[in-house]
């Protein structure tokens, strides 16, 4: 197994209306993963804030052995990115905002930039709540990429710890892979057959990926595979919304070719319209 379990979590916070829910969520996650949790506040440190936060922490986590709090000042993005590096953080937790009038989730610009700059995996929490809501259905990308193995392993690892019911591996088959375009009946038949073939190949690939995961983790977890046809990185978010997944696990941005700088990549699409809680796995092996 390539994936290394999360040992250190970091939550960057400011005093916002959803802070309480976020702190509950963060401490709960740390507890589930049995990981250390670092809170970093960016902004001026005042005694009132300090007391208030400590009270909040006491409320949700009786055991604070593994919890540290740091108060830092400076630009939030660079500060948090540096802190993640400094403390060798495995997972950065961020709260997303939901805009009520548009009924969609948007990330604050800070969170969005951090997602790109963070040296570690990032979890965007959409629905932080004081009470624990189960993570029933995890959707994970099965892109044909070297990072995918680690991402899928992470999804299974989380599924195991959060007692999920189901994991769906989604393969996005881009149109370019079908190579034939639909013009008339004959080409349509060709395309349909070709898609079925790709679907079979994808399934084999998924099975190979899952085979490499130790039984201790896959045991008791139900998983499915689903091929969807559409633009990469975008359709999977739509899919997660349609099947009402609780968590979407994605590869971090892949190597940036020059060409891609001018076009939004998979993650950029996802970040403008987050469908569910989103976990972005930054591979340690593949950078």
């Amino acid at each position, binding site marked *: 197994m390539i994936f290394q379990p999360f040992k250190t979590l970091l939550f960057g916070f400011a005093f916002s209306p*959803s802070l309480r829910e976020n702190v509950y969520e963060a401490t709960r996650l740390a507890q589930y993963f049995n990981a250390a949790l670092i809170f970093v506040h960016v902004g001026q440190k005042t005694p009132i804030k300090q007391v208030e936060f400590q009270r909040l922490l006491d409320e949700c986590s009786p055991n604070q052995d593994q919890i540290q709090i740091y108060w830092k000042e400076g630009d939030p993005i660079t500060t948090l990115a540096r802190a993640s590096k400094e403390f060798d953080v495995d997972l950065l937790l961020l709260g997303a905002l*939901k805009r*009520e009038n*548009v009924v969609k989730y948007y990330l604050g610009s800070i969170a969005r930039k951090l997602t790109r700059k963070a040296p570690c995996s990032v979890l965007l929490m*959409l*629905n932080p*709540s004081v009470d624990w809501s*189960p993570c*029933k259905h995890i959707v994970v990308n099965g892109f044909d990429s070297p990072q995918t193995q680690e991402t899928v392993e992470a999804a299974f690892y989380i599924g195991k710890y959060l*007692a999920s*019911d*189901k994991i769906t591996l989604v393969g996005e088959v881009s149109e370019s892979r079908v190579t034939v*375009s*639909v*013009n*008339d*009946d004959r*080409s*349509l*038949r060709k*395309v*349909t057959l070709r898609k079925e073939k790709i*679907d079979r190949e994808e399934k084999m690939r998924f099975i190979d990926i899952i085979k490499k995961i130790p039984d201790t983790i896959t045991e008791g977890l*139900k998983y*499915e595979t*689903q*091929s*969807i*046809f*559409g*633009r990469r990185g*975008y*359709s999977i978010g*739509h*899919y997660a*919304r*349609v*099947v*009402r997944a609780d968590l979407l696990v994605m590869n971090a941005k892949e190597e940036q070719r020059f060409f891609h700088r001018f076009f939004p990549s998979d993650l950029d*699409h996802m970040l*403008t*319209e987050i469908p569910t809680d989103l976990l972005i796995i930054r591979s340690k092996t593949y950078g």
Partner: protein
Amino acid sequence: MAKKNPIGTFTKELPQNIFAGFVVSLIALPLGLGLAIASDAPPLSGIIAAVAGGIIMAIFGGSNVTIAGPGNGLVIVLLSAITTLGEGNLYEGYLLTLAAIILSGGLLFLFGVLRLGAISEFFPASALQGMLAAIGIGILAKQFHVMLGLTSIPGGTIEQLLRIPDSLLLFLGIHPFAGVLGVASLLFLFLYSRIRNPYFHLIPAPMWVVIGSIGIGYYYTLILNKSLPIAPELLINIPNHLFSNLPHPNFDKLLDVNFIGIVFSITLITVIESLLSIKAVDKLDPKKRRSNVNKDLRALGLASVVSGFLGGLNVVTVIARSSVNTNNGGTNRSANFFHAVFLVLFVVFLGDQIQRIPLTALAAILVFTGYKLSSPGALLRIYKIGPEQAFIFLITLLTTLFTSLIVGIAAGILFTFIIHLILRKSFFLFSLNIFKPNVLMYLEKQSGNYYVSVKNFSTFLNFFRLKNKLDQIPESEHVIVDFSLCDFVDHTVMEGLYDYNLSFKRKSGIFEIIGLDIHASESQHPFAVRKSLPINALIGLQKTLSNRQKNLEKLAEKLKWTYEPKIESDPEGIENFLFFESKTVNYSVNSLWNHQFNLFDLSFSEGAFITKEDLKATFLLFKSPKNLPVFVLDKEDFKTTLYQWAGFDDINFKKHPDFSKRFHLSGNDRKAIIKFFHSELIYFFESHPVFHIESNGSHLLIKGKDRLSSLQEIKIMLAFAKDLLTLLEHSEYRVI
């Protein structure tokens, strides 16, 4: 399935295609001549276009039963090209226009190569209708005078329209015979469909007009021995040496702005008219084939280039002639070829007779065509869809009449978008999402159905994305298009989807649309614009039924149940089910019930305030004949942690390992549940589709998918519930 021998079929069907080609040529001859004359081009240029189109499309085309030739839509563009480019000299203008036609053919070919057929999807349906109507009015305005024998009425379309009363008063004094012949021809064309004699209908109406007017001419010259009572300038003139003096296209104005504009106009109208025709003709194809649109565009481009070099107009796929083709037994492209062959034969052997065709008779045919394009019925039809569509139609129509086609269609697009903004009252919905892929399609594993989800908005601006996905689904399959994540659906999309519905029906597939039920619309029309509204505004406001609702209504009639589409803000009888314990019920809609069953769509929310998530699903509720233990039966892989938390766990049966593996059964009273689930009942669940089923002691609740169920799924659900009820009535279980 045994493979058919294509060559054998071709030979077998050859006679009927020759016949169809012949009948088509009968209508193509007068139309070809007429359209050319209406464009102020030499009469034969229309025939040349039809011949070039027929032969080249038959060899290189990608559609099967379409006919190509000069098109109605082009008349206005070509006319203005010939008059403006020639600066008064019509022949010079014609030669310059030939060059534009050749370049446009090249451009069209390029469109086909680059697979740009999809651009025609970017035109809103109502704006397109408005543009076509404007073309129709343009043809009508000019040709009405010609029909009366007055060939030189100056001015633009509006001016010409205003002069019609003058001409009506004048014409008897100038060309009484020819004018009366024209008016009589027009009356005949209007009455033709009323004459219900099949032999008479073998020859298309325009050909009757031509034959009739030639016949009258011969009657005068041969029987009465008088000279022809029609002035020579009102007769068709064909040069004597057809092939020796081909015109030479004049490429002098290549860099002229006006010239370039004309090239683009010609190309645009050709693409629009051809694609509309191909789409319509595909629905008439007796063999239900799908046309290769881009291949057709390439071939049309090639045909236009050839036609242009030979002095012909540009080549378009035309709907009227194509439908004559299918009506008369055309089954493949050879009919198009034979129509060209017959046209050549006509011109070569009947040249003298063709020269006896009065222009007024041809003009009558064109007036009729123009009327058909712009018929006021079209406006009324569009008004029924929604007043805003009529507005778009009129804006496009008037702008086109007063300016040009390109400006007109641009105005139509702009106004459609502005109206969408006004209707939706949100600029962000459109601006934020326009460049994003908004369509997801996948094959649902359990049912084998194609599921297509559309989000954000779906209008003419991004219909191509939805179309692209739908085109990849074989029409014999079952597809469900879900708009529940979509806030706004416009008329263009609704109409496009209706087209898909038809083509799926033709190939015995199923095309269902769900998720539009709570979208508000302005009119009863199935193509009306639909936008989603906040719930409070919706209650009591909903006026019109969506297709799914209409189908539910029909289903209720069939079953003799009651159907009520109204939104019920406080649905009864569902509170004490476990399923709703952690959810808020918003409203129910689309109830379908009888004395036992109650089926309804339910909107409910999970979470509250900022984490609120609105969901919709279809439920079926019925009273059990006996008391039941409280239980929840679900598919095993959807087992909910929630129920385990509530203290329930999976109840398994040693005797029924398969059932235990596939289903998750939970409830407080283990004993009673085990007793209740006797072998017969277990076998029932094993052998039927899997639903989420709950009992609250007295009632049973069956839940469909995590989205609204389609009509097919509802039927399956009803059948399931009925079987279950029968089983329960006959089972011996008693609660002690």
